[in-house]
């Protein structure tokens, strides 16, 4: 398998990372080298093998639906790039 330049640019767009034409070329070379390594997996017959997501096969714990945390909005928003009146500011999405 080999990724085309267009595929690299499409993946970068999906990941919301801007890449220039020249960065895309370098990235294409690196990614194809890495996928060559990854392709070794394809030779293995894994039919009937249960996929393993976690080392211990535990199920998700559920907690009671109650308020357990104090309101620390001011402290959490102090690290945001831009806020106003308790809201996060981003560029206008709808005209």
């Amino acid at each position, binding site marked *: 398998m080999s*990724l085309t330049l267009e*595929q*690299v640019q499409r*993946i*970068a*767009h*999906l*990941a*919301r*990372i*801007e*890449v220039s034409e020249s960065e895309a070329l370098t*990235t294409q070379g*690196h*990614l194809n*080298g*890495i*996928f*060559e*390594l*990854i*392709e*070794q*997996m*394809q030779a*293995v017959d*894994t039919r009937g*093998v*249960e*996929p*393993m*997501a*976690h*080392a*211990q096969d*535990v199920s*998700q*714990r559920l*907690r009671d639906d109650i308020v357990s945390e104090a309101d*620390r909005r001011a*402290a*959490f928003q*102090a*690290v*945001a*790039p*831009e806020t106003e009146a308790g809201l*996060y500011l*981003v*560029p*206008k*999405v709808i005209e």
Partner: protein
Amino acid sequence: MIHASLKQLSQALAAKQISSVELSTLFLDRIERLNPQINALVTVDRERTLNAARAADARIAAGTAGPLTGIPIAQKDIFCAEGWRTTCGSKMLANFVSPYDATVIRKMEAEAGLVSLGKTNMDEFAMGSSNETSFFGPVRNPWDNARVPGGSSGGSAAAVAARLAPAATGTDTGGSIRQPAALCNLTGLKPTYGVVSRYGMIAFASSLDQAGPMAASAEDCALLLNTMAGFDERDSTSLDRPQEDYARDLDKPLAGLRIGLPKEFFGEGCDAEVMAAVRAAIAEYEKLGAQIVDVSLPNSHLSVPAYYVIAPAEASSNLSRFDGVRYGYRAPEYDSLDDMYMKSRAQGFGAEVKRRILIGTYVLSHGYYDAYYLQAQRIRRLIANDFVEAFKSCDVIMGPTSPSTAFKLGEKAADPVQMYLSDIYTIAVNLAGLPGMSVPCGFVGGLPVGLQLVGNYFAEAQLLNVAHRYQQATDWHQRRPAGIE
């Protein structure tokens, strides 16, 4: 005092031979003097550290101290610590001052009374094996400043090796505690997945990430793990198990211990002199009464390929939170919301992090998920099953931690695949979720070699015992780099 074990420091503090303020000042002064040369710490806050030391001294005076109260420690900069800048080695978080504590920090500081000396340098978002991907510049190996300390916990390893701290925390997703421990002559332990809480530990690959101690000896690691481990309801994968004393079995004799040697760890791919040091360590274990058993991990050659699907897939999801909205870097100029995301992430992440996000995005994308992600998870099962089978005939598995000693800065930086292969012996252990250690076992050309120990699930106390008995019989772990008096 700078070479004292944690037990000796604990005794000195309890006997009032030294105060925590004095001890912390000793290490802060060393950091000020020596850190510019090796770049092991990225954030130091003398006042904050001394305040914590004063509080520890008060606990000691009041008789409410624990065994490690007042002992200074360096924290990997992946752990959120309230009021401390927490960068994860990235421009993305270069100005992030955490509003809360990771559970590991809370347990070590508030409960155990350890005193944080500062935050250690690391590969960006823990993605790297040489500490060269850090936004804050590479860390230099105290054994040879032209060489890397390993990664991703390279700053922690270099800090302890240069005695800028008596011990440090690390995290290990594919070898990031064990490989730098090996390259800097330290003892490092990655616990069973789920033993140490991941809450507040900035996520890389959530099904693999696990925190653990890095120190001069197995005994030090046991005492530290006692403060780090434990169930945490804030981490959904934390395991609810009874508290253990990980130092309880340190002195148990090794007679009858069955050491499994996987033939896959002793084939080609490893430097011959590194292999000779590992074999000599195994011979020492035979003298201590252990028996050697041949075992096999037939799918271990698939661990690097499977890891480079699973870890980037999880990373691409975890790192989607860095969008320039709620915290972290925002590009100065953009012309729409989408453009702000694209530019903030392009400028805030380094090259290796971007590569892994792109791999992860691709393997999770429509039409490729089954061929890559599911296939990797199936192979993960095969790798874990190999260990289960091997542990039917042995108690502990041994082999090299790293296929080579510390390599030169820049040597592998241009070729991601070569860099990835420096973790060929450690990654399978993360995929299986098992506990693993690296223990100093010799030198090649003046550079340290690490012996890797892999235990069965929850066998941390046994691994620490196996490492400790070896360290009673050998002095490799006590060797110091030139100039570290």
